[in-house]
């Protein structure tokens, strides 16, 4: 049996069990909708303008935050990775800040910045800087010294070594960091929408649907949309990474 057939059997089985559990009355049909109702709701939402605005608001905040985080984290990582003194000096600060879950800063950020989109973006940047920065520092540690020495003996200066040798060989790791950060940024954006009482956003939509009338069909449809976005981003970045860095010999993580 080919793999794709098994894939489809698995998915069909999942929906059949879900539908069956609801039909048999094992759970309350009012609180747990069967999959065909969720699918119908999903189809309605996709063409619904106000839901589209919610999705766009969330995706836009995410899409603005991620490049900013890359712009901060990669230079910072290169700096801290290549200057041992700077690394030692900032280590205590970094180790102090890192364990604080980024979402714990949401109430503070709401007070300092307000409840608007800038709060989403600021916190998403803050949260996504860490994985990219750590992966960059790590990558600099892992650089083959032979490459650096070769470049040096060809007369490359510090900056040129950085641009021509260090950065390219660090890229696969940096990219893994970006992939992790893409997921984290989305989590932070949605959480800010919950807590800040945002006007727009997929998080706001789902929370409003759950708290008011307990419309699980709407909540699940929104969850499927968020999941699809998360899946496409992760899968897209992973494929892109595999394609761009096929020359790389480093073992890249899968998580």
């Amino acid at each position, binding site marked *: 049996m080919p793999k794709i057939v098994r894939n489809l059997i698995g998915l069909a089985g999942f929906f059949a069990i879900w539908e069956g559990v609801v039909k048999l009355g094992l759970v309350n049909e009012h609180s747990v909708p069967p999959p065909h109702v969720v699918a119908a709701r999903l189809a309605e939402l996709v063409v619904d303008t106000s839901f589209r605005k919610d999705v766009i608001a969330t995706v836009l905040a995410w899409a603005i935050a991620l490049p900013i985080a890359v712009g901060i984290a990669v230079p910072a990582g290169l700096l801290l990775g290549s200057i041992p003194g700077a690394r030692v000096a900032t280590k205590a600060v970094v180790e102090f800040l890192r364990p*604080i*879950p980024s979402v*714990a800063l949401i109430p503070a950020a709401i007070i300092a910045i307000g409840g608007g989109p800038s709060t989403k973006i600021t916190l998403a940047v803050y949260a996504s800087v860490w994985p990219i920065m750590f992966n960059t520092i790590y990558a600099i540690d892992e650089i083959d010294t032979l490459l650096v020495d070769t470049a040096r003996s060809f007369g490359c200066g510090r900056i040129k070594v950085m641009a021509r040798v260090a950065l390219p060989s660090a890229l696969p790791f940096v990219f893994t960091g970006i992939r992790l950060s893409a997921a984290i940024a*989305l989590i932070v954006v949605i959480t800010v929408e919950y807590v800040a009482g945002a006007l727009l956003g997929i998080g706001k939509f789902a929370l409003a649907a759950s708290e008011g009338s307990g419309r699980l069909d709407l909540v699940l449809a929104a969850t499927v949309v968020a999941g699809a976005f998360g899946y496409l981003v992760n899968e897209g970045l992973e494929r892109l990474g595999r394609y761009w860095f096929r020359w790389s010999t480093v073992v890249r*993580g899968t*998580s």
Partner: protein
Amino acid sequence: MNRKLLWLVQRWIVLLVLVGVWELAARRAGSIWFPPPTKIIDQGIELWFSGPDTAAAWTDDILPSLARTLGGWLISVAIGIIVGTALGRSRHGMEYVGPLFAFMRAIPPVMLVPVFIVLFGLYTEMKLAVIVFGTVWPILLNTVDGVRTVDSVQTDTARSFRTPRHRWIGSVVLPAALPKIFAGLRVSMSIAVLLMVVSELVGKTSGIGNKLVSAQRQFDFTIMWAWIVLLGILGYGLNALLLVAERHMLRWQPSRHTQRLQAGG
């Protein structure tokens, strides 16, 4: 001696200077938003050790938060390792559930908060469910991956020593999979802390997250910062415990640092 002193100075000077600048600036500006660090520490001591409501802070907030985080995480560890081992050992298991699991894993775990609010309400069941759902995928999928890395030398060796069937999983498969499993455990631990905070920020019934929101609502920023610091300490402590366990259980591994890069937070 001198070198050690220099190293110590180098290591701590920036943090100390930053905290010092914060202290002076906050005292001079008198801003209620950013209270000086010494005040935050005093506030923390009063909240958790010396003040009148110390007992309530522990029994109503800190311990419930910790229990939910660790409880949810441990449930995920059990489910993830058992199901992951079974799926990793079976020839076609992952082909049936792979796409479904990949999708479940890609759902931003905080999206499950509204789902479980409808199903379970605002209390502990909802928070536990969110933490379990959010943390189980990295453990499960890393276990599947790890179980599949058992190489032919390991299986042949075990076979030539006539390792009995019932000891096969425990003494061959799981040890070989352990580095991968630990990578999953680390990722999921930071997700567990994050989801604990989020579920409490939204389901404002008890816990550290709830304290954060109520301090924000009452505009008591010193209290808010104190709880943030506590969350940092908890996150650090849980991660440190896990690292100790990992070091202990993976002593025999020749080189593990290639697995370390994925521990994103």
